[in-house]
């Protein structure tokens, strides 16, 4: 993975000292809150309901064991012993104090991490495929491009005060695990007919108040043109994006209101000009970056133990079935560690668990970890011979839930338990659903279904693209939950359709149960998944189950 050099380190340290002085200026009154707020946001510091929250960047979701260990130490030293992994591959600490933040940032800087640009109207953490560099279905590793974009976007002089936040995601596989079509710019690494490497460029995706599936801006962009082209898009957006209304300020609205063809024209014109002036990174620099993402030094070992364990240990076999994905090296496996224990808060890990993961990665995983937007941790390079011992270690640390992709593998934003923007809680709903289906012992039977829960219309829980999406709102002074169905978070990204009136907090769980009942009843056999049944039958049969039962009077 990319190793920071002196330049990167200096940049982070300088930024910490800059922020420390900004904190001082705020405390002394030299900066008002209005002036301080965008500066603290650009350094990842939010104010939530109960405390400040620090959002630490994990560039394209990749980190090593030393970094994971440091995150654990920070959790213990300056927070309440845990961290929350987010849908943008970052980590959040919920209980930061303003005066501690410079120390936390310095501690992060010790392992070349930071909280820069994880908030604010700037270019955010570039996200990517959490299986990048390991997946067997990859055209090319997207992370060198992600790293190039990271360097390009760090403290960019022109684009620090955009109309609104700007999110970029990149995938190197046609099996899009980065949900690129939900981003302001989505990039898909691909080869053209001549076999040249380049990008499909997608623009104007976004969830939230007005969800949009991103549209193709360029069918094929040659690899060397990435930065000037992105620069052109950003310049068009910076100049023309709306600044009069916070909820209409993203590029998705600009594309929608101006029209894709006109935006294409503007970008291409700007790009032609940029090409003349843009000083491109040297081939040497590009090669240096790419060299940092070379394949791990694969080992060779006997896999008999692994095979035996799979045969003799049912729990282990279950873990292999659900949590392991195909690696490009047939002797290796990609391990997804679920942070969705039944009844726990999705995406949370204790400092102890973080250290266990760090140790496993160091000893058995080529010292590499990933954070997935589904709020789980990935060990991307694990030789199969190590799987039995890893499973044991995970089990000891309460990290062995074999539920990846199952109904209890729920994505949920922090919701009103933490977030100042929320209109309802999401965590208790996630817990209830997971508990219920575990109780019923139906998880395995139900198979793959993606439930995503957002605690407000900003959709940080990505409910729009959940097979079952749940949106927490408020009605008559109490929490109320709307359901959407049929969302998909891949290259065929689809926005879910609302079922109808919302459900109270008492009714939402029975409602989800009824949806699953319908699925189990109507499916053509176990092979047909929930989303496939929905696509085959449509909304009617599900909404009938939701609303035509005796629960009518409970429906808000």
């Amino acid at each position: 993975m990319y190793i920071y050099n002196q330049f990167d380190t200096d940049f982070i340290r300088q930024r910490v000292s800059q922020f420390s002085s900004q904190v001082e200026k705020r405390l002394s009154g030299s900066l008002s809150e209005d002036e301080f707020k965008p500066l603290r946001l650009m350094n990842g510091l939010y104010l939530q309901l109960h405390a400040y929250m620090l959002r630490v960047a994990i560039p394209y979701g990749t980190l090593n064991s030393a970094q994971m260990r440091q995150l654990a130490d920070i959790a213990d030293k300056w927070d309440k012993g845990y961290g929350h992994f987010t849908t943008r591959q970052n980590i959040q600490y919920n209980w930061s104090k303003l005066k501690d933040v410079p120390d936390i940032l310095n501690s992060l800087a010790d392992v070349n991490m930071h909280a820069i640009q994880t908030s604010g109207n700037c270019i955010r953490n570039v996200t990517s495929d959490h299986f990048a560099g390991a997946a067997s279905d990859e055209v090319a590793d997207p992370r060198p491009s992600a790293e190039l974009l990271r360097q390009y976007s760090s403290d960019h002089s022109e684009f620090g005060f955009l109309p609104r936040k700007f999110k970029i995601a990149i995938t190197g596989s046609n099996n899009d695990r980065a949900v690129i079509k939900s981003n302001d710019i989505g990039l898909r690494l691909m080869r053209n007919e001549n076999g040249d490497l380049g990008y499909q460029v997608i623009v104007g995706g976004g969830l939230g108040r007005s969800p949009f599936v991103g549209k193709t801006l360029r069918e094929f962009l040659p690899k060397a043109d990435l930065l000037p082209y992105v620069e052109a898009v950003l310049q068009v957006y910076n100049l023309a994006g709306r600044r009069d209304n916070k909820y209409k300020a993203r590029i998705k609205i600009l594309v929608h209101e101006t029209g894709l063809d006109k935006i294409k024209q503007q970008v291409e014109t700007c790009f032609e000009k940029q090409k003349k002036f843009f000083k491109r990174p040297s081939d040497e620099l590009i090669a240096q970056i790419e060299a940092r993402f070379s394949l791990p030094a694969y080992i060779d070992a006997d896999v008999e133990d692994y095979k035996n364990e799979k045969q003799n240990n049912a729990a282990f076999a279950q873990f292999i079935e659900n949590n392991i994905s195909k690696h490009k090296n047939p002797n290796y496996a990609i391990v997804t560690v679920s942070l969705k224990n039944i009844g726990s808060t999705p995406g949370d890990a204790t400092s102890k668990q973080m250290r266990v993961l760090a140790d496993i990665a160091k000893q058995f995983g080529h010292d590499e970890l990933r954070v997935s937007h589904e709020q789980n941790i990935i060990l991307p390079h694990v030789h199969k011979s190590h799987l039995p011992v890893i499973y044991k270690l995970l089990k000891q640390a309460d990290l062995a839930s074999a539920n990846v992709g199952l109904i209890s593998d729920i994505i949920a934003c922090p919701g009103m338990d933490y977030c100042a923007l929320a209109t309802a809680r999401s965590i208790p709903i996630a817990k209830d659903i997971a508990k219920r289906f575990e109780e019923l012992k139906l998880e395995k039977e139900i198979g793959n279904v993606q439930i995503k829960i957002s605690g407000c219309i900003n959709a940080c829980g990505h409910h729009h693209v959940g097979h079952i999406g749940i949106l927490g709102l408020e009605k008559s002074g109490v929490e109320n939950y709307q359901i959407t169905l049929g969302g998909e978070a891949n290259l065929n990204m689809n926005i879910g359709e609302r079922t109808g009136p919302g459900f109270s907090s008492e009714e939402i769980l029975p409602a989800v149960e009824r949806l699953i009942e319908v699925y189990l009843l109507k499916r053509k056999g176990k092979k047909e998944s929930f989303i496939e049944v929905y696509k085959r039958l449509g909304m009617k049969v599900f909404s009938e189950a939701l609303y035509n039962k005796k629960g009518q009077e409970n429906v808000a």
Partner: protein
Amino acid sequence: MRLVIYCKREIIMAKKSNLKIITANDLVEGDVIYFTQSFDWSRNYADALIVNNEEQELQLLEKAQEQQGRVIFPYLVDVAIDGQQEISLLHFREKFRSSGPSNYFHGKQEIGKQENFGQVGA
């Protein structure tokens, strides 16, 4: 029921109540605080100064906003009082702010300041 009206100076949680208090977050600690009679800040809403008309509301808000060096984003919140003159918070968001999250025993409830606000389906 309207949820939030945000304008430059204040956030008003709109519900039918004449009685209001002011709340904010502490600049340094980040935690929830309430504006008291002595124009100071308490971690306990029971100590909050109640106002009951628009003129008082604006005056109190202005006073609170003068303390920019200590607090962030003061705003008005609806309350009710019972026979014993004890304040109760009306909106569930404010109840959460006064106690802490419902998934861990963290925040004010941990310190024992406010009662724990119950969980769904607990």
